[in-house]
């Protein structure tokens, strides 16, 4: 299809195609395609645009076209990140009993990736200031990072960061103690 368009268009050297792919989790998604002051917004699965000398020309692509044009690129896509959540006893960097059991699953996920890198993200509930929660979140994340290293994960593959109280799992008013917000997320990618 691209080749035919090229044969017709004068400026074929710089033509190209953009296709919006269906989202796995059904989130709303869009890509805007701008050529100079001309803009097309793609916001439905398989909505597509082809660059032409007159600006982006919208059309509807198909699974077949995507497979033939982007098959190699799509088959090189890395595995998506997998996320696990561990919960803490209030105000401490100690896991709840259930969370201690989740550790085996995390190690299995790490083991099945060819070059795993692991992000340990500390979260807190909304009790206290941003500053103290950033520090507490970091402390929790560092504790989990240290535990993963003790379990044999190379130190260079694990990073600890804190989101403090910026990403509450259970939305609450500021100052509310909520056990489900005191957690560490382990992102394996």
């Amino acid at each position, binding site marked *: 299809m691209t080749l035919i368009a090229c044969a017709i268009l004068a400026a074929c050297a710089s033509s190209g195609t953009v*296709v919006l792919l269906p989202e796995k989790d059904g989130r709303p998604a869009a890509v805007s395609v701008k050529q100079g002051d001309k803009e097309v917004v793609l916001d439905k699965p398989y909505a597509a645009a082809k660059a032409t000398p007159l600006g982006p020309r919208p059309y509807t692509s198909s699974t077949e076209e995507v497979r033939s044009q982007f098959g190699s690129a799509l088959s090189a896509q890395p595995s998506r990140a997998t996320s696990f959540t561990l919960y803490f006893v209030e105000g401490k960097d100690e896991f709840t009993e259930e969370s201690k059991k989740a550790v085996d699953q995390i190690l299995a996920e790490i083991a099945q990736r060819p070059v795993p890198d692991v992000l340990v993200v500390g979260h807190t509930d909304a009790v206290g200031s941003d500053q103290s929660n950033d520090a507490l979140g970091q402390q929790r994340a560092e504790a989990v990072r240290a535990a993963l290293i003790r379990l044999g994960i190379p130190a260079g593959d694990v990073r600890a960061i804190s989101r403090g109280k910026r990403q509450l799992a259970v939305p609450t008013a500021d100052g509310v103690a909520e056990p489900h917000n005191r957690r560490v997320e382990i992102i394996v990618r």
Partner: protein
Amino acid sequence: MSISRMRAWRAVLMLSLLGLATLAGAAEIGQIKVSKGQVTIERDGKSIPAGVGVRLQTSDVVKTGPDGSVGITMDDDSLLSAGPNSVLSLDRYTFDPTTNKGRFDASLNKGTLAVISGRIAKQAPDAMTVRTPTAVLGVRGTEFAVSVD
């Protein structure tokens, strides 16, 4: 030492550790997770082989040969993968994992690219762009594919 003073001291320690971590890792923005056939990175005028596990820096240009394809996971969980005969340039990348704020500009000069956007695009629409020789794509939390002939 009181609990609050201990907490404050710990915060200072953590901040200095964070500072070190940022310095050490400042240059690393992503990692090659999949590499098939010929894949290279142009960095500082040199061409280096881009095997699985190699870490990426801002301004790296990733190239694939006629039999090549490559998959990259960026620090914000964006996934980029390119098919054969592609030239993908990581022009600009900033990302703060604490606030999820950042900016990601890449260019596809040639070839094919599939993108699943990550936390940068989720936090702020249009904080991620992909340029082609003819167009600028603004990303709004998305999975898409782009080709340049």
